[in-house]
């Protein structure tokens, strides 16, 4: 079995970090498959009984909307893995996969995978460790996301600068959904903060100034009339009268 195939298998999240000997044992079971353009690898609702690594060519992941129209969810190319979790959970396929070009695939069937597990019990423990680590990682970020959400609700964005480095790093390893969530979350916060800053800016633009020269000039124009001089005297008199009446 080629080293290339082992390298490809390692791309499956399920197998990341497995020792070489176990990967070799798995690679023994891998068989090659071929699709013609337009041919379906599997359909939505089929039993999930194998994982696939694309060796060559491109496929389209499609679903159907309520009107029966085809919706393209994604496209995958060489090195990408389809359906690794189905080796464990056997859930029905959530979408169909159709070849765009001629496609060469590596297939690892669930039954073969289980056979390797029997003779190599340490594989099960390794995979459990992987899952456990991922779960911890995800939980940590979910907790952080909850914490940040509370801070956003209070209008406190001080954490943004702290997570910037983390999230930029996370975008690089886009295999992991938690990292992607973190990245999407960070973009969301930046968007919200940006809009809020814009609005604050508008408020600052609204800082109101008084033209003091004009103020003085208008005041002088209004108060330089005989009417005004009279009014001032009269107003004082009226106030006095009203006080006397009290």
């Amino acid at each position: 079995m080629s080293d290339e195939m082992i390298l490809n298998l390692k791309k499956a999240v399920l197998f990341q970090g497995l020792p070489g000997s176990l990967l070799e044992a798995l690679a023994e079971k891998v068989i090659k498959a071929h699709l013609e353009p337009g041919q379906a690898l599997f359909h939505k609702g089929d039993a999930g009984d194998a994982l696939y690594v694309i060796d060559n060519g491109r496929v389209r992941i499609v679903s159907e909307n309520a009107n029966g129209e085809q919706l393209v969810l994604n496209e995958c190319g060489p090195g990408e893995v389809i359906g690794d979790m189905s080796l464990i959970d056997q859930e029905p396929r959530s979408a169909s996969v159709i070849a765009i070009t001629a496609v060469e695939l590596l297939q690892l069937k669930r039954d073969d995978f289980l056979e390797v597990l029997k003779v190599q019990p340490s594989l099960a423990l390794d995979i459990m460790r992987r899952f456990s680590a991922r779960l911890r990682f995800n939980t940590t970020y979910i907790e952080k996301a909850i914490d940040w959400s509370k801070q956003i609700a209070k209008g406190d964005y001080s954490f943004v600068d702290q997570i910037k480095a983390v999230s930029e790093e996370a975008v690089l390893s886009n295999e992991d959904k938690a990292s992607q969530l973190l990245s999407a979350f960070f973009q969301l916060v930046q968007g919200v903060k940006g809009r809020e800053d814009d609005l604050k800016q508008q408020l600052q633009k609204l800082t109101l100034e008084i033209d003091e020269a004009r103020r003085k000039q208008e005041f002088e124009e209004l108060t330089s009339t005989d009417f005004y001089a009279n009014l001032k005297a009269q107003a004082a008199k009226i106030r006095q009268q009203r006080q006397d009446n009290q």
Partner: protein
Amino acid sequence: MGKIVSIHSFRGGTGKSNTTANLASQVALHGKRVAIVDTDIQSPGIHVLFGLDEKKMGKTLNDFLHRKCEIKDVAFSVGEFATDSEGRAKLAGVNLWLVPSSIRGREISDVLRNGYDVNLLNEGLQTLLKVLDLDYLFIDTHPGLNEETLLSIAISDVLILILRPDQQDFQGTAVTVDIARSLDVPNLVLMVNKALMRYDFEDIRKQVSEKFNAPVAGVLPLNEDLADMGSVDIFSLRYPDHPWSKALRGVAEAILAIE
């Protein structure tokens, strides 16, 4: 002796008539004897808020200014005759009067052409304070600084200046503040109306108060619901829990607190 409270704004469209009607109603609900005089003879409007039309109105301030009747004959008892809407129903039995301006085109143009005797207006106001034994006489003024308005400011015990948070209102209000100080108005209170919700209200209050060196009794939000209601009722009575109504009650309390 009652207090004369003039409600004024340098420019139109600040919500002056609505504010006057609501403030007077709130003060009257505190058990005070209150009258409103609509001296905005050029463009009267406050009568609509109290459900008055030409038929219901009877004699007006214009008749008094033409010496056709006495001022007390013009005062319309809101608490007796205008409780025919959801908000105004709360004014039943309350001591609140309205002295409306004529809405007849000919009578308005007559005043515009010939003006009126500002001294007579002043005498009328002083008489009204006495005969109705008022605690507060609210004057809804015409925007700007014409002679009639200057008189209302001059004889006020309290002057409430309404402004929107915009440049033109700021400039015009500055001149009005100077005039009020020059005329020795004892109490000058500012009220900001129609502030957009996205503004920092506390910041606006601070800015305005510092710029004019006068207390700001309230910063009231732009009230789309008030526009929506049309001018058919007293908003703060109909929707007492609305943010605008709450802030307005704060202004009413500021007026009541003045010694």
